[in-house]
């Protein structure tokens, strides 16, 4: 879809400002009322969904040009989808899709991606990963493990490690632990090793739609050909794109699950049990692409008719059907562990600041956004901040170090490991 497809949305935004805030009924304090990191950082309305709607309308109507500044306004957004959730409570509009379309337009006009994005984009093109790492090293994280290689064997479940868990030495243990837990629970699981390829979420996020579709098509075909029933990933970024964007690219003969969902399922089936106490107070950070962004999308191609009705009727995403309960169920099942919730949770979670290419192009903005989350986490009295996304973990972890917070940054799988 092009931006033109969203003209009704663009001209009908009444600028109620709901996109800037948590829904009023869910606001618990003055300090934790905002939902848009971009608005918080840059202040001008242009850096909200409402302002970007105005920019998009002005671009469509030729009132402004796609300039470097316009590109900056477009890319200083984490694509966290907070605006999408609160706007949709009120209106039948698609802020997140418009934000994506603006990036595609920036690319078409030669203003995107930004220089800060290019190393990752080029690396995806050349190496099938955004981390400038050779393809040949992709499977090294599992080289000491005994695991099915699905390029040779068959299994019911593909564990898709994703680029960050595959290459980042500090995070590889997450992939190994997850795989080990699945194996110990008797899951028939395998990996692709060096044949695994980037999900291309980073390309989509910076507006490289063709590159994304090419990778997505290739991955869908590969997964279909493997004959797996389920693709499991521990990366919220991969999960979000596999779950919400891939269905728009091709038919998928497999289901997609995040590892926390799978752990929750194994707990309920009695295939995973916790026997050891973990005496710790923790708080859970809902990653945007696992939570509100983890909701399946309605692939809609229609028009707006009289009174703004959608023809054919469209199912809207309200962000509440993402993966929120599974990680909480797992944490609550760990003996001795206490879960202390932050104010902004579930569909109204505050973003970690890393998404949408912000961490690579606007690192200071990414860290400031993370800092706000760290302060929110500290206010719960928790000793550790837990999540299940490599981007969140890296960015929040960096912020903890930068501000000298006493919080520990943990991946959920680490706690699961301690409890087994």
């Amino acid at each position: 879809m092009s931006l033109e497809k969203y003209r009704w949305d663009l001209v009908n935004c009444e600028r109620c400002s709901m996109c800037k805030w948590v829904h009023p009924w869910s606001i618990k304090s003055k300090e934790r009322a905002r939902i848009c990191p971009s608005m918080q950082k840059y202040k001008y309305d242009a850096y909200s969904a409402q302002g970007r709607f105005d920019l998009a309308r002005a671009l469509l109507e030729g009132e402004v040009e796609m300039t470097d500044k316009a590109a900056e306004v477009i890319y200083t957004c984490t694509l966290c989808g907070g605006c999408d959730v609160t706007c949709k409570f009120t209106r039948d509009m698609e802020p997140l899709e418009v934000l994506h379309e603006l990036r595609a337009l920036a690319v078409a006009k030669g203003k995107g991606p930004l220089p800060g994005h290019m190393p990752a984009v080029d690396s995806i093109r050349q190496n099938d990963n955004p981390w400038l790492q050779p393809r040949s090293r992709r499977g090294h994280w599992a080289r000491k493990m005994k695991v099915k290689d699905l390029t040779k064997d068959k299994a019911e479940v593909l564990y898709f490690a994703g680029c960050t868990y595959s290459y980042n030495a500090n995070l590889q243990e997450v992939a190994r632990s997850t795989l080990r837990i699945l194996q110990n629970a008797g899951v028939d699981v395998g990996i692709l090793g060096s044949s695994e390829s980037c999900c291309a979420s980073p390309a989509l996020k910076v507006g490289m739609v063709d590159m994304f579709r090419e990778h997505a098509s290739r991955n869908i075909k590969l997964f279909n050909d493997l004959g797996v029933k389920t693709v499991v990933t521990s990366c919220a970024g991969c999960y979000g794109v596999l779950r919400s964007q891939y269905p728009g690219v091709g038919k998928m003969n497999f289901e997609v699950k995040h590892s926390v969902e799978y752990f929750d399922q194994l707990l309920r089936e009695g295939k995973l049990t916790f026997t050891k106490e973990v005496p710790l107070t923790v708080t859970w950070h809902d990653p945007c692409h696992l939570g509100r962004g983890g909701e399946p999308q309605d692939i809609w191609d229609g028009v707006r008719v009289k009174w703004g009705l959608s023809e054919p009727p469209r199912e809207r995403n309200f962000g509440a059907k993402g993966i929120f309960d599974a990680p909480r169920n797992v944490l609550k099942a760990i003996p001795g562990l206490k879960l202390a919730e932050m104010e902004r949770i579930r569909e109204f979670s505050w973003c970690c600041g890393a998404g949408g290419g912000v961490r690579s192009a606007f690192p200071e903005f990414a860290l400031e956004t993370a800092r706000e989350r760290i302060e929110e986490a500290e206010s719960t009295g928790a000793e550790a901040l837990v999540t299940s996304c490599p981007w969140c973990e890296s960015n929040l972890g960096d912020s903890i170090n930068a501000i000298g917070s006493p919080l520990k940054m943990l991946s959920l799988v680490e706690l699961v490991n301690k409890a087994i």
Partner: protein
Amino acid sequence: MGLPEGAYQALANALGAENICDDPAVTSGYSYMWLIYSTHAQSGRYRPAAVVLPRSTQDVQTIIKIANRYKFNYIPVGTNLLPPTIPARADTIIIDPKRMDSIVEIDTQNMFAVVEPYVTYAQLQAEAMKHGLTITIAEAGAQVSVVANNMFQGMGGTGHKFGYNRGVLGCDWVLPNGDLLHIGSRGNTNADWFWGDCAGMNLKGLLRADSGHCGGMGMVTRMAVKLFPYPGPQTFPVKGANPNFEVDFPKDRFKLNLIKFPDRKKLIEAMYEVGHAEIAAAVHEEPASMVLSGASPSVEYFWQKYPDFMKQWRNVLSVTLIGFSSARQIAYEQKVLDAIVKELGGSFIDEGSELWAIGQDNIGEQIRTGLSNRLFRIAGDFFVIGGFGFDSIDQSYKMSEDYMWPLIEQGQKKGHFVPDDTHNDWLNSYQLGHYSETEPLIYFEHDLDAGASFINSYAQTVVEAVKRRMCTTWPLGPMNYISGPTMCNYHELVLKIKKAVDPRLTSNPDYPVPQEPPKG
């Protein structure tokens, strides 16, 4: 056209380069909104020449003094919801208070709070509730600015009990020449913020009068607002997940009644009786379109339900009881209400019925407005025919029946306004029924034809009101030239006041009254 030479640099020097921007990619975000086809049809709309982000009262004074020195216009905004904040002239800057977002003080003993312009109602109420206090919240939504809304009208869901336009106490007001004026008790030596008046002459009436000046007379940078007792939980009791939230107030202290009456006259009588009995916190006639939009998670849902719902939901009065002092207060007020309803032939909508399910969140809406923006969902744009009718309850009713609904029907026949044959307004009781405001709501598509239809009907209702010597209000800037001549030429006095405080006419020049009457 941009700012006069040197003006941008002067502003940048004063505020820091990062707190001013004139790039079209940024200023576009302040150039468009609802009703724009209607309100800016004559002037056209403009991108602001720049947007500035002050941090303090002193910053605002500096900006305004620079505007006077270099002769350009400025529009102070809050959360920026109303069309008068969109420039109708080229050489205009926006003063955006996003960096002025502090709750300066909550005085729990004297029950008031002091806020800066970018504090929203939801933020203030969330903090006030922790102290057992609350505030009546703008019907425009809890996401709007406390200061801006109180500068406009300050009306809210619980205005039946908490009053209309009575919440403003001491203020810091930067006048259009850049001078700082303290009003209310803030104006007395060593006085605090606690009182809306002061010893000696008080200029509070100039600050707002009936319905504000839409940024036409400088900028209020700090405002003290009255808080009221709140006997509920410390956090707003919401359940469920987006978009299906429910509110869950303790039943012994909060009670919603939805009551159907045989006709509007009986409903109006009941509003009076509830006022006479001095019971209830919120009393509203609630039209079908509004109630259903509040319960609609999508436009498709609304239109699927609307035809049947419109037949069933007629002449419904919403009465929210709050036991401020005790649970026994609720029990007493409910008995009184039961007697009134029985005497006037009304019937309570059963809890558990389908109608109740659709209307039940009305209690949350009265205490923290969270549904009202869903009115836009119905057709794209909406407003109130003829502005608002402010008068006694029966006069509001008469205005709406005599000439507002006939005009609505004309717009419906043209296909511009959403069909509605209920003749039910959103009619609100204030100050225990001593005052009221009626809003016959119309919904239309956001386009030129419907916008023109709306604005013609709007102007006509102002004309009809003044012919009948009734009180209609909130005539937008130029509309004052229609109502003024039949009301003692009040618009000339308002213009004189504006010129006295804003001799260069730099503060949103067309508000509250433009220098020249509109063309045509």
